[in-house]
């Protein structure tokens, strides 16, 4: 864990977990597997001008099918976090081993950079978990500039 607070308001009984490959992670402290997870990292494309959230969504949709089994991109739409930051979301599903997962990627336009929020939910419990995940994603508060992710 880092010292900075997790940039999403977590559902009850969810806690921040370890940083994995540059991703800050969070999930429930217990429960059936596969467990849902929330992931966060800022996007550093190195491009100028920087890509927009929708551009990054296009790139994701182009890459996803090659990287996952039985992947379907289900939906895309523009949205916004509660603090007004505009975002572009991509909803998809794929198989991971024997489990089906449903994933929300949110590319959020921040101050000078884009942030990537991800909710990975077991499809078997998507109907119940989706509202919790959406509330968490929408609660995103941009970390101050210079704060380590």
């Amino acid at each position, binding site marked *: 864990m880092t010292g900075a607070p997790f940039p999403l308001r977590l559902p009850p009984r969810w806690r921040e977990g370890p940083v994995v490959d540059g991703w800050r992670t969070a999930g429930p402290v217990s429960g059936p597997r596969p467990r849902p997870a929330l992931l966060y990292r800022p996007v550093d494309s190195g491009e100028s001008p920087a890509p927009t959230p929708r551009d990054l969504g296009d790139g994701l949709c182009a890459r996803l099918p090659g990287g996952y089994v*039985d992947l*379907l*991109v*289900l*939906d*895309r*739409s523009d949205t916004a976090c509660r603090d007004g930051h505009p975002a572009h979301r991509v*909803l998809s*599903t794929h*198989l991971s081993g*024997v*489990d*089906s997962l*449903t994933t929300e990627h949110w590319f959020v336009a921040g101050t000078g950079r884009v942030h990537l929020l991800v909710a990975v939910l*077991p*499809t*078997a*419990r*998507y*109907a*119940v978990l*989706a509202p919790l995940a959406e509330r968490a994603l929408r609660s995103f508060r941009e970390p101050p500039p210079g704060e380590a992710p």
Partner: protein
Amino acid sequence: MTPGAGTAVRLRVLVGPHQGDGCAVLDRDARCAVVSLPGLAGVRRTALDAVPGWVAACVGLGPRPAAAPLGTLVAGRAEADALLSGHPGALAGAPAPWRAALPTSSNEVLAHWTLWTAEYALEIVDTGRCGLWHLHPADPALVAAEGTIGEDLVAIQPTTATQVWRVLCAVFCPDQ
């Protein structure tokens, strides 16, 4: 699986990438299903949580522009079908915001399918660039408010692929 022990979910695809009838018999205890779908070779056994994705692929569920929040339009069955296939005469009688949102040609209908159980039915018309539309029996109170009478009235509401996916997951993976 014990024959007859499961819930049956039926699918009828009238228009779409794979047309025809399908069925999934769910065994919640074993968390699996026996599935037959248009476009799927033979009868297959799979985990419950895989079925929403199989159905989504069968009907071509995918990103679509979201129609404006128009509320609900109540129409007779035949008129509803005409509206969603862009029939000029039907469109002329629709409220202006709906005329702007509905398709103008039957060529724009990518898919039309119904999924049902003993307790629930979901009917979706996918009009591509004009979005997804949910059809369901009209609420009697709404029918009375509209001043219309008659049988076989349907309510048409814009919906999204996300909302449809949520329903598919709830139907095939209940109580998880």
